[in-house]
């Protein structure tokens, strides 16, 4: 895995974080990462043959009993993809992906039609139990509805009836294709067109499942909605697609979690998420990404190439992305906002933690099109081990974006002396009557800070995780309550030596 970064700011500090060798070793111990979601569920799966061609796409579409317009959408995307080149502008170093060596559809074998959760394979329920996402009626989380996706298919969605009473549709995207075809046809691909980028085109051609959310006019979704993505097969990719539509004056908070087993091969995950917010609607989309990151030598781990974008179509609409990215061997992800509606608001709050040989290239694009639009970007990158952690973002003020404002803050924290942190902010303004503000900082946990906490009886490891979570505070404050606690724990876990 050769790292082809040339012009990176290799953060080599003269006064190293810790001077003596004892502490150097301690740091190495501390940032060792235990991954407790690495188990594989032994379940009979239906897999199609490896490889990618028109027949495979027809087969996927056929398996899902899709209408013709969707098959056409896929085939068109595939044609575009074939003409595109894999992007390399992020300078990520990874082994060439052989797209013919991937299985594009893998599903646990289940009864043809499942009418209730009781009919879901107990092994699957057990898997989600183990992941802390119980699905059964007795045990399900009380304040959040969950759509559980296993490899290529959604296996269960909780609280459907309760949500339906409010007119909220929450189901797998495959189901939405069947039951809410009009909405799919109207919105699918309108935020992230198939031609947007290489991985979006690939996803458009082969996407298997994902979540669909529709919040009707004037409805404040009565509970948080959540999708949990689980990769189980080592040789199949996951290509989920999520579409969320918030009608006028509606609001929803959506959470997304993901884990995968530990394999020594790399698994491709190329998702697309599209959000649409109409007048006065608000969508809050939070992610805790904890895909398997590979081992200390960089063997295995998920390649996470994701396109997430929200369209603030309506006036005073708001889309807020918050993400905690701790997993994946490679993260390539820029949740963005197209601010079309007058006075619409886009937000991006991000914590990205990389360790060992992980690479993260993440950030956002805030495209101000309408007048008086506002965006806020707060990004916190933490790099430990030999990892590379980059913020890459674009703020663009279009010609009509008069009176628009952006504020960006990008902070990096380095742990140890082998990690690197980069910030690539791109700014394009075609509107003189708009404001763009950018702040950036790089810090290192200083020996004095550590000593101060230790001299108050706080253990070395706890001191580090305290400072890391302090560093991320601005972002954690944006996460839904339980998520914030989970994120805090997750970071501590990633940084601790021996937590079971």
């Amino acid at each position, binding site marked *: 895995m050769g790292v082809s970064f040339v012009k990176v700011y290799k953060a080599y500090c003269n006064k190293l974080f810790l001077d003596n060798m004892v502490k150097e070793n301690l740091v190495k111990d501390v940032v060792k990462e235990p991954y407790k979601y690495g188990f594989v569920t032994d379940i009979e799966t239906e897999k199609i043959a490896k490889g990618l061609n028109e027949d495979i796409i027809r087969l996927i579409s056929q398996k899902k009993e899709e209408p013709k317009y969707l098959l056409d959408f896929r085939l068109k995307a595939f044609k575009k993809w074939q003409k595109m080149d894999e992007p390399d502008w992020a300078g990520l170093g990874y082994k060439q992906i052989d797209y013919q060596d991937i299985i594009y559809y893998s599903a646990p074998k289940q009864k043809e039609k499942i009418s209730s959760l009781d009919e879901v394979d107990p092994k699957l329920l057990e898997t989600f139990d183990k992941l802390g996402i119980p699905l059964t009626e007795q045990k399900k989380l009380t304040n959040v509805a969950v759509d559980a996706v296993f490899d290529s298919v959604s296996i269960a969605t909780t609280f459907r009836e309760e949500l339906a009473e409010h007119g909220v549709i929450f189901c797998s995207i495959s189901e939405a294709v069947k039951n809410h075809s009009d909405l799919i046809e109207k919105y699918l691909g309108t935020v992230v067109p198939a031609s947007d980028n290489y991985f979006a085109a690939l996803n458009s051609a082969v996407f298997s499942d994902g979540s669909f959310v529709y919040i009707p006019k004037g409805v404040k979704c009565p509970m948080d909605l959540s999708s949990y993505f689980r990769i189980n097969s080592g040789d199949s990719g996951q290509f989920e697609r999520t579409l969320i539509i918030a009608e006028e004056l509606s609001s929803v908070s959506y959470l997304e979690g993901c884990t995968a087993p530990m394999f020594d091969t790399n698994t491709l995950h190329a998702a697309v998420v599209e959000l649409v917010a109409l007048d006065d609607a608000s969508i809050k989309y939070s992610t805790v990404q904890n895909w398997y990151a590979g081992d200390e030598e960089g063997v295995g781990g998920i390649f996470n190439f994701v396109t997430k974008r929200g369209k603030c179509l309506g006036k005073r609409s708001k889309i807020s992305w918050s993400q905690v990215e701790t997993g994946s061997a490679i993260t390539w992800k820029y949740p963005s906002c197209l601010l079309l509606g007058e006075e619409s608001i886009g937000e991006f709050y991000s914590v990205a933690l990389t360790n060992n040989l992980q690479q993260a290239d993440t950030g956002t694009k805030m495209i101000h099109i309408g007048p008086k639009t506002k965006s806020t970007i707060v990004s916190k990158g933490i790099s430990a081990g030999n990892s590379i952690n980059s913020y890459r973002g674009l703020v663009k003020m279009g010609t009509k974006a008069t009176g628009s404002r952006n504020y960006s803050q990008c902070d990096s924290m380095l742990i140890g002396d082998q990690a690197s942190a980069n910030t690539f902010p791109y700014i394009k303004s075609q509107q003189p009557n708009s404001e763009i503000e950018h702040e950036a900082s790089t810090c290192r946990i200083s020996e004095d*800070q550590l*000593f*101060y906490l230790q001299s*108050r009886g706080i253990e070395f490891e*706890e001191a580090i995780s305290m*400072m890391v979570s*302090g560093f991320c505070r601005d972002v954690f404050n944006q996460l839904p309550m339980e998520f914030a606690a989970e994120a805090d724990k997750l970071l501590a876990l990633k940084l601790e030596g021996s937590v079971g």
Partner: protein
Amino acid sequence: MQSKMKESDPILEVENLFASTDNLPILKGVSLTVFPGEIHAIMGRNGCGKSTLSKIIAGHPSYNITNGDIKFSGENINSLEPEERAQSGIFLGFQYPIEIPGVSNLEFLRVSTNARRKFLNKEELDTFDFEELVKEKLELVKMDHAFLSRSVNQGFSGGEKKRNEILQMALLEPKIAILDETDSGLDIDALRIVASGIKKISNAQTGIILITHYQRLLDEIEPNYVHVMADGQIIKTGGSDLALELEKKGYEWTDNFVKET
């Protein structure tokens, strides 16, 4: 100089301590014994090794002990981690308290207090119980409750930082407190508050080492012993009158002292 007739065992014994950083010798044979209830003052020019001595006792990783021992309650602590020393009851009040962005003062104080309580086999406190305890201690240093919700020392004035140190001392109830220039940067009112806080916290079981340049702190807290340090050694030890004399004559007066053996 020190009385041979002590009823209890010493809290802290520094025995012929030599220490260096980056191979540069800083301490060149320091000996110091503190018994319960005693207040020691250490004075001396900048760079004489006062602060280094305090950091080494607290376990700062940048310094290597090349010779000699530090004993706490009779046990050698040379190789203990800073947190182990703190948990067992050694407190260092920093000359320049460190800012920790994003970490709330309340949470920091609670985690720290619980680490000490755990060592003492006392029950750890949850946020609510801790709030009660801390409220009571805030009184001692006349600090406003609002300080608790701010990040540790961030944006605190010099005086607020020092008061926050004494608040920590009050919560941790150490057996020995080494206060490194706690008086520097304080106006007269703040000095009185800090001094009275220190006096209220200390008792017949605790030992205190005050590192200072000024008589004014010693007017508030009268030491039993005053030590003068120069070039990594204690060159003279006396009673509280030594500080007064030093105040009058300045450090130049001590230039001709040779180490008393």
